[in-house]
């Protein structure tokens, strides 16, 4: 009975988190919408419920509404509709409480290049009211965390893009916030710098910090996140764990290259693959410039059978590759971006939801 009472209470009373000092959700956004003054509906309906300690990835193409959403979560933009609670504080009623309890790293690197690395972190410590006695140690720890200890007293002006980003990360963490927002933190960085940042983000998350990360890099979300929300056109198109999302592609991906990919041979190969034991109701065959791509739950175990069939038909295979679906496959399948939708064979829906688009390849 008391459970029912509690649930009832939670519905009646918006200040749920005041009753329980440790709210279940680090971020609780309900039906967020934001329309700019010029009528642009940047965000139409976004709801998020992110538990404490989760590494959440917010994935979307340019202009999908990622930055607008994150700015609503960190009190920089007031939602046109909907409500947000971060760490139990309402962004509209208690913006200062929210600001105290979050770290935010903007898409554009935000540091004072006239100051040294140490001075940048010190300013952040002071701005967030880190007690005087803890500052020096905290500054050293953070500069250590982002590998800038050896250049701590150099001016940030001379830092590389990656170093500036890392310094920006450090300044967002001075007050040990339970939630950290990272808006496309690795955009424009080389792979090495990006990999290093990923390590820091994992370390931050390992310390129990909830991380909300936006990215257009699918690999990044796959590498880091426990759960992903894909935003398209101002709404969350799909969400789930990387594994769940990958399973929506319908299996592993088998890529075959023909020695002489004439239209006729590619079409023959497609027909053979479509008739093979590989392809059941939930599989798809696509043609490419070089050959064919088969998505199948048995691509690994039965892939060689297809090779044999193709050889028997007189087709020479020069390339053969089986891989797990990447988030790229998932993202493109769901959002349809960058996909050539001229022909049935490359219809985006075919890979995203084979059951609903059976005509694409059968």
């Amino acid at each position, binding site marked *: 009975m008391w459970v029912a009472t509690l649930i009832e209470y939670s519905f009646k009373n918006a200040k749920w988190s005041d009753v329980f000092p*440790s709210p279940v959700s680090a971020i609780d956004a309900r039906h967020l919408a934001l329309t700019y003054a010029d009528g642009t509906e940047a965000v139409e309906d976004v709801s998020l419920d992110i538990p404490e300690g989760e590494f959440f990835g917010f994935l979307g193409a340019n202009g999908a509404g990622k930055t607008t959403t994150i700015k609503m979560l*960190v009190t920089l933009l007031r939602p046109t509709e909907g409500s947000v609670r971060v760490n*139990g504080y309402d962004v509209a*009623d208690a913006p200062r*409480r929210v600001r105290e*309890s979050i770290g935010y790293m903007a898409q554009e690197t935000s*540091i004072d290049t006239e100051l040294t690395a140490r001075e940048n972190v010190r300013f952040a410590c002071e*701005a967030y*009211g880190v007690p005087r006695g803890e500052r020096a140690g905290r500054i050293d720890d953070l500069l250590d965390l982002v590998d800038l200890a050896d250049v701590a007293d150099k*001016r940030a002006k001379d830092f590389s893009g990656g170093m500036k980003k890392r310094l920006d990360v450090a300044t967002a963490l001075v007050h040990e916030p339970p939630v950290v927002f990272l808006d496309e933190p690795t955009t424009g960085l080389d792979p090495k710098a990006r990999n290093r940042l990923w390590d820091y983000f994992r370390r931050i998350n390992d310390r129990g910090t909830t991380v909300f990360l936006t990215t257009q890099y699918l690999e990044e979300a796959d590498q880091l996140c426990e759960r992903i929300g894909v935003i398209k056109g101002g709404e969350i198109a799909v969400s789930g764990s990387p594994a769940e999302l990958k399973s929506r592609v319908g299996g592993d991906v088998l890529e075959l290259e023909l020695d002489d990919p004439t239209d006729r041979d590619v079409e023959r190969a497609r027909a053979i693959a479509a008739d093979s034991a590989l392809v059941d109701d939930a599989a798809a065959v696509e043609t490419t410039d070089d050959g064919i791509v088969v998505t199948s739950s048995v691509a690994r175990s039965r892939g060689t059978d297809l090779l044999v069939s193709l050889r028997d038909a007189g087709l020479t295979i020069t390339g053969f590759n089986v891989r797990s679906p990447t988030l790229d496959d998932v993202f493109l399948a769901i959002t349809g971006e960058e996909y050539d939708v001229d022909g049935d064979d490359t219809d985006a829906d075919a890979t995203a939801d084979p059951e609903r688009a059976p005509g694409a390849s059968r």
Partner: protein
Amino acid sequence: MSAETESDAGTAAGTGNSRAEASGNGFLTDTWVNLKRWMLKTARNPFVLTFSLLNPLMFLVLFTEVFGGVTGGAIGGSVGADVNYTTYLVPAIAIQVSLVSATTSGIGLVEDIESGMFEKALVSPMHRGAVFLGKSLSEVLRIVVQVCIVLTFGYVLLWLDTGGNTGPYVATGLPGAVGIVVVGIVFSVWFTAFSNIMALVTRDQESTMLSVNILQFPLLFLSSAFLPLESLPGWVRVVASLNPITYGIDAARALMFGRDVMSVVEVTAFGGVWNTLVPALAVLVTLDIAFGAVAVYYMARATSAEAR
């Protein structure tokens, strides 16, 4: 902004419930934190600091050396025949220094907007008023130091020119010298507000720099800076009598000579120096409030979370 402040105050009252997190500072601490950052930035740029002072000092030297010999007649009527042109010019240069400092205020704001530090402050728990107060105080401090340097430099120049026979210099003594600094600060507010308005409207460093710099020389020359109003040609005199610089310079000059030098409006009610100071400061304070209100409006707009 005001609604936000109220609601935050409301929440602060109920902190008994809230979790133990790093908490923000009081208003004064926030002001100090920002003042420190801007002082550090100023100190990091000794060249900017030197050259912004060098320009007015060069004016002082060039004008006094080139025109010093022929201006006696023109300034005699206004401040007395035995007055050296250097003494006449130093108050104008003090105001010029304030003008230059005010110019850089907007440029600093644009830099912060462009570097993301502006947004960083907005997303921090710092009091927003304190963020801007701290920055402004660093500019005031700069004016204090630079005006003191101008006054000292002017005296040295005068001493060298006259072989130690300087005549009256800051006739009102130490309170007068402090007064000149205060006039410089009061004068700087409206132009600081103006350069910040340009920064918030253009959000671009070059545009801000251009729009405030282009005004600097016309404002300076079409004023009582180099010659008294009555010796200026017709239309220049009209512009000069409407130019805020004239009021700033007249106020500083009154303190320099210890007498009423205001020629735009004849006020006799207060006696001596005050006949210049009261109307001049009244004009400047009015301007400060008007420009300040517009700047606050734009600042509130720029810091609001309202979608635009």
